[in-house]
């Protein structure tokens, strides 16, 4: 593998979607119109093909050949000899992320061809939608490919922008506009920390290149050759983690993600489930060296992840908006990933990121298909029994739900189990939280499935319910196949393992290992934990998934009475969960309202004080003018009289002396 070879491929990955975006934006409205999706499909498709080739090259190169650093050109220098460059960094993690991003994006673009139509006619802003999607894929690839923190930050902000634009796609709906604003502002909080973290890195290492920074961290010195203090590393890691908390919707800053469901469903699937929200996980995995240098930061990452996983799962239990259930589920699954990272199971976290992309994108696209058929209604109380009307959507969504629930042998099972196992080996409490969340996940996922697809057939009034067409079904089927099978790259066949044949930590882990060196040290091995405990845990988590599904079946299909009785017995618990722990209200009360008051004060200060001073400056000459303009009467004789009067006074002055 040569660098030159990779430059070409990497440029295709970057420029393909960008070209697609430009063509959609420039030619879409006037010329392509209803055919605009082809430009996006070609752009993203070329990026996908190039990503596959990059993946092949990276695999073929083996451990010795990667990472490959490519400096495209020198951008600017802050002080002499310290250059900021547009540089790419290609290693195993990059190539896997590229595959996930471009693969899901391609399916989503294809899906959008039909989804963004009403009765076969493109919705308003059809071209804009595909242009934004192209821009997003470009930004995300730039984020993943970036070879220094500056480019990472650039991509980071660009995907945030695309997210904002796409959440607010239906900008004439006030709720969508508010959700877009909320997502942007909440992300701002996290990104502020992220930016500070990058500044700290620059101050410490006098470089933002991955290679330099990671090399220095590994040798434990800063740019001046002084030993790094653990306090400094903790500070840097936590500031970086701030950005991840915002972008990946972790506990204090998760509030934007459920609201982001105001955007079109393909956007939820691509940006708010499969790719952009995993940028935080990617970043922490990429900066594993920095995080591993600070055990405190790692503990915080693990705790935040575990707490978020459980917290979001409990909220998802009682939501009735199908996409919001999935959004909380995404928050919860992202929590799993951070839990994995925090307990040094880097490859397990990335593995979960990879499997999650399949089944969560599938579930969101399925929910979109339901929404499309129900005429925009997504409240699962308003329809039921859809499996008879939408068999394809039902079948594929069940596969996705099983994978999410952690049904043994499906993709979600393998990755989630590894994280739970690593958490157990690290700290028993974290492991228990992981297991409990797994149970809740299975329950709420199938509660949603049963409520929407089982029971008597019921659809909202005035809606002609129908199965979606092939443009929607086809991506669903591909993703369902992924949800079924993608997990098997993370295991290998070996006697004596799970069910007697499967041994965890397979091809994918060995592939990723060189890219995640920092996590290898702390990663617990199967031997250390003991084979029995290892596989006992696997059986246990599989059992919990099945228990969760059965429980959901009992409560929502078999005997709904029990669910009602439960709801009536614990009205307060239910109210708190339904109110999402009132976190939004607390933010409104303690942060948004004071901030708004402060803004109001500043506004008035500006309006009355600062503007007042400015007006005074301009009003003074104007007032003087008012005073003296009466002298200009405009009458000939008037001027004459003034002259005579003046002359008379002058004469008097002269002669009186």
């Amino acid at each position, binding site marked *: 593998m040569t660098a030159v070879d990779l430059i070409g491929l990497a440029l295709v990955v970057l420029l393909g979607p960008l070209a697609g975006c430009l063509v959609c934006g420039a030619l879409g409205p006037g010329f392509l119109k209803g055919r605009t999706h082809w430009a996006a499909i070609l752009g993203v498709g070329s990026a996908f093909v190039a990503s596959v080739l990059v993946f092949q090259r990276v695999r073929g190169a083996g451990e010795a050949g990667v990472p490959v650093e490519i400096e495209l050109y020198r951008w600017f220098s802050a002080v002499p000899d310290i250059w900021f460059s547009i540089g790419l960094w290609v290693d195993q993690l990059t190539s896997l992320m590229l595959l996930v991003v471009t693969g899901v994006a391609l399916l989503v673009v294809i899906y959008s061809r039909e989804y963004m139509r009403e009765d076969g006619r493109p919705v308003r802003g059809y071209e804009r939608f595909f242009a934004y999607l192209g821009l997003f894929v470009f930004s995300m690839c730039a984020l993943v490919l970036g070879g220094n923190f500056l480019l990472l930050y650039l991509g980071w902000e660009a995907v945030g922008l695309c997210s904002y634009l796409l959440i607010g796609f239906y900008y004439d709906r006030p709720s969508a506009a508010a959700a877009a604003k909320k997502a942007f502002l909440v992300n701002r909080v996290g990104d502020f920390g992220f930016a500070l973290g990058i500044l700290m890195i620059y101050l410490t290492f006098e470089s933002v290149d991955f290679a330099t920074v990671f090399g220095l961290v590994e040798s434990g010195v800063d740019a001046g050759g002084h030993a790094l203090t653990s306090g400094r590393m903790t500070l840097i890691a936590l500031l970086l983690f701030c950005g991840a908390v915002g972008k990946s919707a972790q506990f204090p800053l998760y509030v934007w993600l459920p609201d982001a469901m105001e955007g079109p469903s393909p956007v939820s699937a691509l940006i708010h489930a499969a790719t952009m929200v995993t940028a935080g996980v990617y970043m922490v995995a990429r900066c594993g060296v920095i995080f591993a240098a600070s055990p405190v930061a790692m503990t915080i990452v693990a705790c935040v992840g575990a707490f978020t996983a459980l917290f979001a799962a409990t909220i998802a239990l009682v939501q009735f908006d199908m996409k919001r259930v999935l959004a909380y589920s995404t928050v919860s699954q992202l929590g799993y990933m951070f839990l994995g990272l925090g307990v040094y199971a880097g490859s397990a976290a990335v593995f979960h990121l990879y499997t999650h992309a399949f089944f969560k994108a599938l579930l969101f696209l399925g929910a979109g298909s339901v929404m499309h058929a129900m005429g925009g209604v997504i409240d699962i109380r308003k329809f039921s029994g859809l499996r008879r009307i939408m068999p394809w959507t039902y079948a594929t969504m069940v596969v996705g739900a099983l994978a999410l629930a952690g049904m043994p042998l499906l993709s979600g099972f393998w990755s989630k189990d590894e994280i739970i196992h690593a958490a157990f080996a690290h700290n028993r409490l974290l492991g228990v939280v992981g297991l409990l969340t797994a149970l809740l996940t299975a329950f709420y996922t199938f509660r949603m499935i049963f409520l929407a697809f089982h029971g008597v057939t019921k659809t909202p009034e005035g809606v002609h319910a129908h199965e979606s067409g092939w443009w929607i079904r086809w991506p669903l089927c591909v993703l369902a196949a992924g949800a079924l099978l993608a997990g098997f790259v993370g295991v290998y066949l070996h006697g004596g393992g799970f069910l007697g044949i499967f041994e965890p930590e397979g091809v994918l882990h060995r592939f990723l290992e060189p890219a995640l060196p920092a996590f290898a040290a702390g990663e617990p091995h199967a031997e250390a934990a003991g084979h029995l405990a290892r596989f006992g845990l696997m059986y246990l988590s599989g059992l919990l998934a099945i228990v969760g599904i059965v429980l959901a079946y009992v409560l929502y299909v078999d005997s709904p009475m029990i669910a009602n009785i439960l709801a009536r017995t614990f009205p307060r618990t239910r109210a708190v969960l339904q109110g999402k722990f009132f976190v939004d209200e607390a933010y409104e009360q303690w942060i948004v309202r004071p901030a708004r008051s402060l803004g109001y004060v500043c506004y008035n200060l500006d309006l009355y004080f600062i503007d007042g001073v400015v007006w005074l400056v301009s009003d003074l000459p104007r007032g003087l003018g008012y005073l003296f303009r009466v002298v200009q009467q405009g009458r000939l*004789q008037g001027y004459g009289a003034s002259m005579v009067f003046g002359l008379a006074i002058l004469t008097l002055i002269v002669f009186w002396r």
Partner: protein
Amino acid sequence: MPSVTAYMILGSLLFALGLVGFLSRRNLIVVFLSTELMFQGVLVNFVAMGSLRGQLNGQIFALHLLVIAAVEAGVALGLVVYLYRRKATLDTESWSGMWG
């Protein structure tokens, strides 16, 4: 032969008459004639002063001013004609667009 003072009184009277006419009449041409009258009063004064000091300066200056006044009269009457064409009136009150 009347004294210089008498000439100067004549000049002042002419000037005062012109001034009163200038301030009180509303016909543009009469206003203009009044200014000419003030002019003549000043000229009489010039000549009288000149003879008082036994010099020709006053008379030469007066001749100069007569020429200038003739030219100025041409310009002024041209303006009056032009103004008349604009509004078909000679009333000075109708030309008060410059009030502040």
